[in-house]
């Protein structure tokens, strides 16, 4: 049987098709990896911000408990993706990430001295929104959209609904994260 011979034009076209499929697949894979974390933090925000608005006295303890739950859930998610491999590394890496985030906010608050609960509540979502938008430059446009939407919703609540900002951030900001998580699961 004679070997198939193709023209440079057809070869270029085949390479283009392959590159497009690779790009789409890699992007869908990254979105799929990110989706459960968005969903998790959406739920944490609904409970955390919503609870802080309804029971401001226990807000500190509530967030402490939620962070512990988020840490445990993040380890479980990472383990599920790793198919049970490198368990200890996953635990340490996830815990170190949480400590780094906590240290960042503790240091920033110590330096900037936010004077109101409103400022304290608005700062983390803005940092998260910024992180999503920047990560989106490498991951794909959906993360940029999620970041921009989160920042816009946070700023909207901060300036136009200050008396119910925490409730707003919980249900609208947290709800947006949950929706983004569902959206990321779709190819």
């Amino acid at each position, binding site marked *: 049987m004679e*070997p*198939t*011979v*193709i*023209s*440079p034009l057809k*070869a*270029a076209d*085949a*390479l283009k*098709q*392959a*590159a*497009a*499929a*690779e*790009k*789409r*697949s*890699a992007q*869908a*894979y990254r979105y799929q990896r990110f989706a459960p974390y968005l969903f998790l933090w959406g739920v944490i925000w609904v409970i955390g911000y919503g609870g802080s608005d309804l029971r401001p006295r226990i807000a500190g303890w509530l967030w402490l408990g939620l962070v512990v739950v988020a840490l445990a859930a993040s380890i479980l998610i990472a383990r599920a993706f790793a198919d049970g491999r490198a368990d200890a590394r996953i635990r340490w890496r996830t815990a170190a990430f949480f400590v780094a985030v906590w240290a960042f906010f503790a240091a920033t608050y110590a330096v900037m001295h936010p004077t109101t609960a409103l400022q304290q509540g608005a700062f983390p979502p803005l940092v998260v929104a910024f992180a999503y938008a920047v990560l989106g430059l490498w991951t794909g446009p959906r993360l940029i959209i999620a970041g921009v939407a989160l920042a816009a919703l946070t700023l909207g609540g901060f300036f136009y609904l200050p008396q119910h900002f925490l409730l707003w951030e919980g249900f609208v900001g947290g709800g947006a994260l949950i929706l983004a998580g569902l959206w990321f699961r779709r*190819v």
Partner: protein
Amino acid sequence: MGELDAVIHQPVRLKIMAALKALPPNEQLEFVRLRKIADATEGNLGAHIQTLEQAGYVAVEKDFADNRPRTRVKLTKQGRRAFEDYVAYLRDIIAPGP
């Protein structure tokens, strides 16, 4: 310069191989996602996956997730190498080496 791999050189199979190549080694892709990426019908995709499986390029795993049947596909070592050779062959056609 080798020969063109006729198993890969078909639009849907090429997309399947490229989509699987984009994943880390041993990572599987669900049939449903693969169908969207390859832009193929269910029957068409199934037939092409079978061709690739017979060539030893992909491995298919069927199980149940949330009480639903699930089919996952991954690239084998042989498949990864074949795809790399295929891409190298095409690049050589476009810009022949010395």
